[in-house]
């Protein structure tokens, strides 16, 4: 760690992993409710479990992005954060606000929470992913502003790199588009139209800039490839992201009351949204193949390559699967959407946060990389979580195809609940696979405890080992 203030990232990363665990536990509860409908009813109804599942995801990814920014911005800017104390203070405010919100979800009926927090003064609750009480949303804005002040000030007064500028554009966009969560008219079409300005322009817009810059940073550090090359790739990738993704918002405007021309705009532009993800995959493998050093942190490299591949599959391929309007007419709002959502979030955002944690955490703990045993555990967790997510996606896709056929396509469309009974086998398989994911997560957390007990690996040791293996290092160099 070159600058002491980078260390504030540690807090954010630890909280992110804790919330990740909570997200998975509630995911398993929901998965079971899909097949045992009265599980935990009425204590934790499905909608409450789902709120915790999705909101914990959003908050831990935001924690991960903030941690990533606090870690990489000083290193890129070649100066300490302008206000490390503010970063710490905002961490505790954010954590307490998130914890109180989750406690509210779990222990107060949602309507009571709305009343307690004065939702009628500025109604913003009860919309998917934006369920947080208005006061929590205001808290998020305050934390985001303080965060942007800290990060922006550090970037503008230090060395300006492309990685930092792209990250800053992504983070400013994140904050700006979140403001649309405060717009909630009675007119349902307008409500939905601008709700997507938060949701779509986040995950298929500015978040991809954050993803790109974190990935570029990790690749620069672990491969030693010339910064100029990485930066050019980064610009091209994010250019394609926004060129396709902004108008690509149109794929959400097919059936919500907006004009039919969106079926053309949305289909054409979102059909191109896989391109930047494909480029990201080519980019990551290219950089690793052209590496000029052998970084001892193999686990971080694996996460970086993994995110490039899985983002392409989950966001790119599974997005394309149902993005053309004639297809979406049948698949809209089915398990196909759920399948895509799971793999896209895991591939693009979970894995990039785990990549930067994997790279930065050992360094913040005073070693270049974790011990061999710790890394092997971490790589096991990578494969368990990634493979189980692939299967979760496949099972949900199978459920979705059957659902579409039985409920929407066949000559005698069946009722929703009858169809759900018919496809229950896939929900069982999804739940079992979810347990494998949980095992992967346990191994992941365990790898940190193993790492803390053993001396880390260093570049020197890795180079030494490679020389011993008949000049492999020379071949790579």
């Amino acid at each position, binding site marked *: 760690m070159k600058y002491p203030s980078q260390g504030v990232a540690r807090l954010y990363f630890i909280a992110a992993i804790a919330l990740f665990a909570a997200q998975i536990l509630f995911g398993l509860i929901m998965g079971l*409710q*899909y097949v*045992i*409908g*009265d599980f935990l*009813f*009425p204590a934790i*109804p*499905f*909608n409450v479990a*789902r709120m915790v599942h999705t909101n914990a995801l959003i908050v831990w990814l935001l924690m991960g992005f903030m941690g990533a920014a606090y870690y990489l911005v000083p290193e890129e800017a070649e100066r300490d954060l302008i206000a490390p104390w503010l970063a710490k203070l905002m961490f505790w405010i954010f954590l307490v606000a998130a914890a109180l919100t989750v406690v509210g979800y779990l222990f107060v009926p*949602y*309507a009571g929470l709305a*009343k307690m927090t004065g*939702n*009628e003064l500025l*109604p913003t*609750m*009860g*919309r*998917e992913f934006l*369920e947080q009480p208005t006061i929590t949303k205001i808290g998020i804005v305050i934390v985001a502003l303080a965060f942007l002040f800290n990060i922006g000030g550090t970037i503008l007064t230090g060395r300006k790199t*492309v990685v930092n500028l792209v990250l800053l554009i992504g983070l400013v966009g994140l904050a700006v588009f979140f403001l649309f969560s405060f717009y909630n008219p*009675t*007119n*349902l*079409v*307008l409500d*939905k*139209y601008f709700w997507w300005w938060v949701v779509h322009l986040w995950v298929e817009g500015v978040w991809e800039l954050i993803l790109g810059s974190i990935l570029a940073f990790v690749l620069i550090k672990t491969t030693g490839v010339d910064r*100029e090359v990485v*930066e*050019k*790739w980064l*610009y091209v990738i*994010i*250019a394609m992201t*926004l060129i396709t993704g*902004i*108008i690509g918002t*149109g794929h959400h*405007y*097919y*059936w*919500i*009351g*907006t*004009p039919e021309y969106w*079926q053309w*705009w949305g289909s054409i532009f979102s059909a191109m949204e896989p391109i930047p993800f494909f480029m990201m995959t080519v980019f990551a493998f290219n950089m690793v193949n052209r590496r000029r050093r052998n970084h001892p942190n193999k686990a971080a490299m694996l996460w970086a390559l993994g995110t490039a591949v899985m983002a392409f599959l989950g966001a790119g391929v599974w997005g394309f699967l149902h993005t053309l309007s004639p297809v979406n007419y049948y698949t*809209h*709002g089915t*398990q196909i959407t*759920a399948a895509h959502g799971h793999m896209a979030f895991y591939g693009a955002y979970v894995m990039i946060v785990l990549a930067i944690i994997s790279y930065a955490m050992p360094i913040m703990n005073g070693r270049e990389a974790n011990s061999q045993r710790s890394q092997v555990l971490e790589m096991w967790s990578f494969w368990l979580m990634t493979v189980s997510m692939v299967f979760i996606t496949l099972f949900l896709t199978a459920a979705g195809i059957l659902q579409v056929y039985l*409920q929407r396509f066949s000559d005698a*469309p069946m*009722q*929703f*609940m009858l169809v*759900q009974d018919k496809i229950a086998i896939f929900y069982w398989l999804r739940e079992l696979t979810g347990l494998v994911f949980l095992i992967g997560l346990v191994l992941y957390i365990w790898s940190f405890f193993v790492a803390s007990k053993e001396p880390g690996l260093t570049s020197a040791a890795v180079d030494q080992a490679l020389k011993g293996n008949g000049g492999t290092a020379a071949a790579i160099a």
Partner: protein
Amino acid sequence: MAQTFTKTMARNIFYGGSVFFFLLFLALTFDTSMALPERDRREVLDPNTELGRQIAHGKALWEENNCIGCHSLLGEGAYFAPELGNVYVRFGNNTEAIKAFIQSRPAEGIPGRRSMPQFNFAPDQLEAIAQFLKYASEINTAGWPPNKQG
């Protein structure tokens, strides 16, 4: 990438492309906002009418009870319970049927099955929710969903 394609060119494509397509998106948004009055049934939302107030109240109740956490509405939301954008049509264009269903849910659920919670709504609240769902079903959604099962 070829040497002739420089980082500056890549940067210019990023800034130029993003700004251009964002402006195009704003233009399309403006055009959409001009077209919406013909499609989104805003005429029934007038807060100076009894119906307009009922629909607004119904939407507030929809939100404050997190209905979207199980149901989808015009295809968006959770996929645990039926689509409600067309529930008015599915229930035979009958608000009374909607109200009766909501009222009939057992407080302790149904053993082994998914069941909607009992919300204990007052009669005026039930009417408001039913009117909100009726309004949602009247939005011009380009023919979606494919059939009344949602």
